[in-house]
Each structure stands twice: as structure tokens, then as C-alpha cells.
């Protein structure tokens, strides 16, 4: 995919979604700095092309599972920013009534099934949803996001094996941002490309520039078609970089400043904007308006959240069990 006059409208929409994620997460970061939001926050600033490139091709009834860095995945699947921000802020109006928080977002109404605080923990869950999809025969599929750190966990390998064996309609999306918490991937494994593991298990796999929206979308277009056609799982490794630390407050001293500067040049949002401008279809002012609209929505989500009530003390042990 490349920006051209036939798809400007579509590309603008994708850019708009990337800006929604960026504006939302920058707002979360500043609210954390002001102590208006507390907790353990993992931001995906810099990784927006993966979420938007992958999820813009899905149906509402497709299932998406995230990891601990998944605000962007939820937004890209269509989650409401007010309810998402309120959840991160621990308010009663959040998606989970304040019981989930940043790492355990669930927005079932749009098919964002769950994030998780356990690295790689949702990979098997996605297989389960894919199994249910396959049995139901309505062409649904499941997508799961995880980082390079998950590639060394046992269930990652067990899941690749079973997804391949049972030909499950699941797309594995590895956001290889180079660091598992504070440690570079090279210190955790001799395997340079995690896509190699998928190939070992007989799963079609590719490694793409995860900061290139069009490259991610192209890979995902093929993956979705393959899953919907009943051909089994696909693995996409997206090379990317998180511009923030592992969590908010992490000074990230393990990373060279030159490395950060290098990745900044590859900012996925700026790249799409440059592609549109090079076609002379859009002015700076038009592109800036997209950013401003996203920032206004993030502000609105903040106002909604901070004006929302805290959960009731009686909710501390409600919903432990579902009423059958």
C-alpha cells in the first residue's frame, strides 16, 4: 500500500487513528507526571503504526488480545476513549469500573477482549477465541499482540505449535521493540528474528518495518485473507521502538540517546504525513487539524475521567463471581 489519489481518504483515516493513540498516550503521560493518574503505565508511543495498520482491517466481531502495552490496540479496535481514560484513571465510569486498570483493559463491545499483566499471557487466549471462531464458521479471526520479550516464554512456543497443528485463524503480531523491559533482545536469545520461530512451527511468517503503516497493513491484508480462507495462522514480526521507557518513570538509561534520535526520524506518524504531503494533496494546516482534533478528544476524555466518580466501596468485592 502507498498513499495515492485513490486512497487518500482511507490514509487520512488511518493517520487520524494514529493521532488518536498518540494524543491519548501523551495525555496519559502528562497526567501521570501530574499524579492525576497513578499506577503502572506502559506506553506505546512510537508503535502506533502496528496497532492501526493491523487492526484497521478487522471486523467488529473479530477478537483482539493485547499485552501490558495495549492502550493503542484498544483504540485501534474502536474502544471509546472516554471509557478507556476513565479506566486508566481508576474511575467507576471506566470500561471495567476501575477494576482492571491500564494493563487489564477489556472493551468487549468492540472485540478488544483483554490485555494482560503477564508477558505473553494472552497468546493462548487468542488461540481459544480462534478455536471458537473456527467452530462457528462465520469467518471470524483472532489477533494477538505481544512483544519480543514473550518470544522466550514457554506458552509462546506451545501456542505456535498448537495454532499450526489445528490450523487456527489467528494472527500473531510480535511488536519487536528491541527491549524486553530493560534488556536488549540480543541478551535474551541467539535468535535475531522471532519470525524464525513461527517458520519452525510451519506458520507463514514475515518481518516488516513496524514504523511503516503501509508495510504493516500490506502484511496484515494477506494475513487476514489467509485466516478467513481457513488456511491457518500467520505470524507478523513488526520491528519498532517505544519512545518512552518500559513504564512511565523508567529513565531508560539502558538506551543510547543516539538510538532514540535515530528512531525519532522514523516516527510512524510523521512518515505518513510526509507521504501525503509529497503527493501535494494536503497542506500542513490540514494535517495539523487532524492532530488538533485528536488532542481535543484526548482532553475531552481527560475531563470526562477526572470528573467521574471513584468506584463505590461496595464494589471492592462485587463481580468476583458471575451470576449464572
Amino acid at each position: 500500500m502507498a498513499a495515492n489519489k485513490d486512497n487518500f481518504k482511507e490514509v487520512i483515516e488511518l493517520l487520524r487513528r494514529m493521532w488518536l493513540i498518540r494524543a491519548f498516550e501523551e495525555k496519559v503521560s502528562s497526567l501521570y507526571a501530574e499524579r492525576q493518574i497513578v499506577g503502572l503505565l506502559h506506553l506505546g508511543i512510537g508503535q502506533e503504526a502496528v496497532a492501526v495498520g493491523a487492526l484497521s482491517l478487522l471486523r467488529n466481531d473479530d477478537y483482539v488480545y493485547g499485552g501490558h502495552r495495549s492502550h493503542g490496540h484498544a483504540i485501534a479496535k474502536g474502544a471509546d476513549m472516554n471509557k478507556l481514560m476513565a479506566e486508566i484513571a481508576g474511575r467507576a465510569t471506566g470500561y471495567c469500573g476501575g477494576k482492571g486498570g491500564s494493563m487489564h483493559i477489556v472493551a468487549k463491545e468492540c472485540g478488544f477482549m483483554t490485555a494482560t499483566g503477564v508477558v505473553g499471557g494472552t497468546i493462548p487466549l487468542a488461540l481459544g477465541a480462534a478455536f471458537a471462531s473456527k467452530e462457528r464458521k462465520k469467518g471470524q479471526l483472532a489477533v494477538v499482540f505481544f512483544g519480543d520479550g514473550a518470544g522466550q516464554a514457554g506458552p509462546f512456543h506451545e501456542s505456535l505449535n498448537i495454532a499450526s497443528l489445528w490450523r487456527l485463524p489467528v494472527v500473531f503480531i510480535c511488536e519487536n521493540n528491541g527491549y524486553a523491559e530493560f534488556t536488549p533482545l540480543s541478551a535474551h536469545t541467539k535468535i535475531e528474528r522471532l519470525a524464525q520461530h513461527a517458520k519452525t512451527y510451519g506458520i507463514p511468517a514475515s518481518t516488516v518495518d513496524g514504523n511503516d503503516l503501509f508495510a504493516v497493513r500490506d502484511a496484515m491484508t494477506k494475513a487476514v485473507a489467509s485466516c478467513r480462507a481457513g488456511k491457518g495462522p500467520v505470524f507478523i514480526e513488526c520491528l519498532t521502538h517505544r519512545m518512552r521507557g518500559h513504564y512511565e518513570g523508567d529513565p531508560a538509561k539502558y538506551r543510547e540517546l543516539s538510538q532514540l534520535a535515530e528512531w525519532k526520524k522514523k516516527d510512524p506518524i510523521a512518515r505518513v504525513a510526509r507521504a501525503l504531503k509529497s503527493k501535494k494533496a494536503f497542506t500542513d494546516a490540514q494535517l495539523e487539524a487532524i492532530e488538533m482534533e485528536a488532542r481535543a478528544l484526548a482532553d475531552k476524555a481527560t475531563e470526562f475521567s477526572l470528573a467521574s466518580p471513584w468506584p463505590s466501596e461496595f464494589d471492592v468485592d462485587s463481580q468476583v463471581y458471575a451470576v449464572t
Partner: protein
Amino acid sequence: MPEQTYLDAIRAGLEEELRRDPSVYIFGEDVALGGPFGVTKGLAETFGINRLVNTPISEATVMGITIGAATAGLRPIVEIMFIDFITLAMDQLINHAAKLHYMSGGQLRIPLTVRVQCGISGAMGAHHSQSLESWLAHVPGLKVVMPANPADAKGLLKSAIRDDNPVVFVEHRGLYWSKGEVSANETVVPIGKAIVMRRGEQITIVALSSMVGPALAAANDLKAEGIAAEVIDPRTISPLDIETIASSVKKTSRMIVVHEAVEQGGIGAEIVARVQQEAFYHLDSPIVRVAAPFAPVPASPSLEENFVPSKSKIIDAVRRTVYRRES
């Protein structure tokens, strides 16, 4: 009523639920082949290998798959061949199955049944004989049932499958070939309800799973020496039916608790704590626990015999409680 073995009653329960509800699926190692004890024997022939899903030996992932399938609308049953291997699946069971309803603010439901078999039978050693149920009862969001006879096995299994929460259904391997009356009609035993197996006025014996049989035998012997023991089987350990137990203790003023798991940190400790809270002023003597020693399960049959609580150990504990003298 016709007699059936515990194992056949479980199979009948599975078969009826597979037939009743097309969203019920069974996952596990060798389940399409009947499994090592034949619990699922013949089910694949009737319901097909799509619904009797043989899995690789990947407990952690298989547990997660069934949780994901439950979030996506199925009503899965996963068989963990021995409870000892549930350790491998604990991350998914504890961090996802038990918590997703709560963490999602009620958006997700996990109608999952985890079938495991536990306990000492046949000198299988420390990796095929444990009783780990008290770990599971410590986790909010899980229900834990431990049937002691064929009728309860079938009735509780049906409740577990129909429940919208994750239920760990703990079978005891030593009970598989024991027989009991099972109604041919549809019978569902509610989760969270204890049952009084024998009435008595002088002491309450709370016994779980494989220990219910020895407790009833002990009560029978004790009658000859004039001790009338009431025997209660909690059947479910989470949520615990403390009312039935406490009201019995208010009548008898004495209690012992019997389980096959090691004593320290066992579910007996929870039962004792709750009973003293509910019935402290009715108690005439300290509550005694009869349980396994604080050791791994040994392999040698002679050591194993010493390890398991028995009828004679239960009788000793009752005598100590009933004839207690201040020294």
C-alpha cells in the same frame, strides 16, 4: 436406583451435557482416546473429535485456550490428567480464568470446568498423588468441588459445566471404581452445599473426598463404644457451606476435620477458623485435624499406607476429642 461407578457416573454426566449443549467441548491429553482411566471412553465416537479435542502435552497453553474459548462463547471442559500437572497451568487459571470476570467489570464470563483427578492410589509417588485443592480454594473467582460418591460426582459435574464461572472439579482416582446409587433421572447437585451423611449427637466429623468413606466406617465402629458421630461432607470447598458445619457443631460441641492433603495450610485450617468464629462458645474441646504429614507423597506402598489418613487414625482422633481430660 441403579448402581454405577464414580467413573461411569462422571462419564454419564459428560455425555448428557455434551448432548444437551452444543457449546460444550472437552479438551485434554488423550481425551478422544478415553484417557488413562477411561473417563471419556467412547465420547469421541458419539460426539466427534471436533468436540473431544486431543491436545499436546502443553498444560499452560491448553488451559489458556479453554479460557479464550470461554470468553468467545464456548463452554469448555479441560481435563488436566493429574492435579500435580495443574502447577503448569496455574498462571492461566489464576491470572486469567479466576480474575477476568472481576477485572473486566463483569464484561467477560468464564464458563469453564477444569477436571482434575487427585490423591493417593496405586503407589504412583510424589508427582501423581498430590492433593492441592487448598491452593485453589485460596483464589477468589474459582469454585472448587470435590465429590466423594458417584451421585455427587455426576450431579456436581453438571452444575460445574452449567456454571458461568471457572469451576475446578476435583476427582479422586481412588474412588473411580467405587460404586453407589445414581438416579437415572436428571439430577443436579448444587455447588456450595454440604451434605450430612450420617446423623449423630456427640461429635462432628467433617471429611472430604476420599476421606468420607473412612469417616463413615469410623462412625460405624464408634457407635459400638457409644459415640454417635455426625459425618458431614462439604462437597464444595469454595464457596464453603459453613452454616451446615457450624450448626452441626453447635449440636455436638466437638469436631474433627479429615482430609488427604497435608495438614499445614490445608482446607481444614479454614474450616476450623470459620467454625471457631461461628460456634466458639459451643465447643467443649479443641478441634483436631486428621490429615497427611507435612511431607511429599512417598512412592513405597508401605510408606504410602502410613501417609494416608485412615479409619483407625480417625477413630483415635475422635477418642482424643471425646474423652479429653485436662492434664
